[in-house]
């Protein structure tokens, strides 16, 4: 409870709420796209470096290999659950359901960071390897979703003008995969010493940059929420709220089964419960162009993201404490 309160009252979350409220009141303010994208690259570099340095300190163990496998497995599996639940609870067609499912199997790196902060505040420790897990969980979900879409007849042959490898490049070499994995490797190579010179840029101001970034996320979430409310049926909206909990429960079971530490479990649960709003939407425009961004973006950015960042994370930490305690 106290942990929840101190999460909510951190400047980072307060700036998120500021953006959310401003957008709900229809403020026209925005953070320019080019600036926000630049910040996003900074954040991924910082996260990757930090994780890489941690990984260099703590060598890979069998236990961690299990977490890797769990992460990848969850990213493959969760879209199936999401697919059947959303099909049952909404009136959306197969294409939209498959596209939304892909988002929920993949992850949100900002939610990951917010969870990292909250976990530390709650007095737990998460290992650096989880950055790698996050990177690995970005894409498998897309494969499952496309498989389901094909299986249920929602895809045709390749679209006119499409090129072999175009989708694979978009999925495996998008900015977040390249920068996250690259920075992770670099952090791992240079280690603690190598970080000294770049820490004043990538470590010290990190939390502050996050405030600015979350202001923008709040604005985006608020706008998504306002639009979504008008356009989505109640079953779809409900999915945005119960799906993260379903993923969290599945993941908590896995974390319990493989005996993770509390900190790591809290992060893995959050990753599973989070939904993508940059990498997967881009992939969906190419792979399932008939799926509507207004559906999947409203769900992941307008409903699930705010839910996770405010209520979800404290709950996931509690859940992790329960299953690992």
């Amino acid at each position, binding site marked *: 409870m106290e942990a929840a309160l101190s999460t909510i009252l951190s400047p980072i979350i307060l700036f998120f709420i500021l953006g959310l409220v401003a957008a709900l009141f229809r403020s026209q303010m925005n953070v320019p796209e080019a600036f926000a994208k630049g910040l996003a690259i900074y954040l991924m570099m910082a996260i990757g470096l930090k994780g890489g340095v941690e990984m260099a300190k703590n060598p890979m163990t069998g236990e961690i290999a299990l977490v890797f496998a769990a992460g990848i497995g969850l990213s493959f599996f969760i879209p199936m659950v999401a697919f059947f639940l959303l099909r049952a609870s909404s009136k959306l067609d197969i294409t939209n359901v498959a596209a939304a499912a892909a988002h929920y199997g993949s992850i949100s790196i900002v939610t990951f960071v917010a969870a990292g902060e909250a976990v530390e505040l709650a007095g737990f420790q998460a290992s650096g390897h989880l950055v790698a897990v996050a990177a690995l969980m970005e894409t498998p979900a897309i494969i499952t979703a496309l498989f389901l879409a094909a299986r249920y007849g929602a895809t045709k042959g390749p679209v*006119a003008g499409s090129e072999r490898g175009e989708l694979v490049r978009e999925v495996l070499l998008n900015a977040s995969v390249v920068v996250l994995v690259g920075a992770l490797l670099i952090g791992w190579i240079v280690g603690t010493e190598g970080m000294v010179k770049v820490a004043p840029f990538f470590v010290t101001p990190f939390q502050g940059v996050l405030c600015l970034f979350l202001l923008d996320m709040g604005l985006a979430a608020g706008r998504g929420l306002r639009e979504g409310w008008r356009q989505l049926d109640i079953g779809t909206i409900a999915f945005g709220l119960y799906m993260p909990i379903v993923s969290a429960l599945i993941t908590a079971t896995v974390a319990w089964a493989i005996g993770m530490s509390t900190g790591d479990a809290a992060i893995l649960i959050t990753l599973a419960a989070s939904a993508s709003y940059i990498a997967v939407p881009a992939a969906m425009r190419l792979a399932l*162009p008939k799926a509507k961004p207004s559906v999947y973006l409203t769900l992941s950015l307008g409903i699930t993201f705010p839910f996770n960042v405010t209520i979800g994370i404290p709950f996931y930490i509690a859940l992790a404490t329960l299953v690992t305690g």
Partner: protein
Amino acid sequence: MHTRKRIELIIEKMAYKRAGRIFESVNVSGYTVIPALAGYGNGNKWQRDQDISGSRDMVMIVSICDAETAEKALEQMSSLLGEHVGVITISDVTVMRPERF
């Protein structure tokens, strides 16, 4: 003064390379892609600086070519526009060095 065709294709930004490949396959001499800022269609609106994913962005592609090439481009494009959101129009324009197109 000679008459040529101006193709204007308003299409999703994520699909512009697909449209480009189609233009190239029918041998247009060139095309230019222009970013859009906002748009409205079927009761829905989008705005560039307000969508963190960029997945609703549109662009306008303009290509100047001869009538025959334009027709071929149109034909090929129709299947792309069956999948992606887009609007294609053709109009007559006067050009200076007709051999270029």
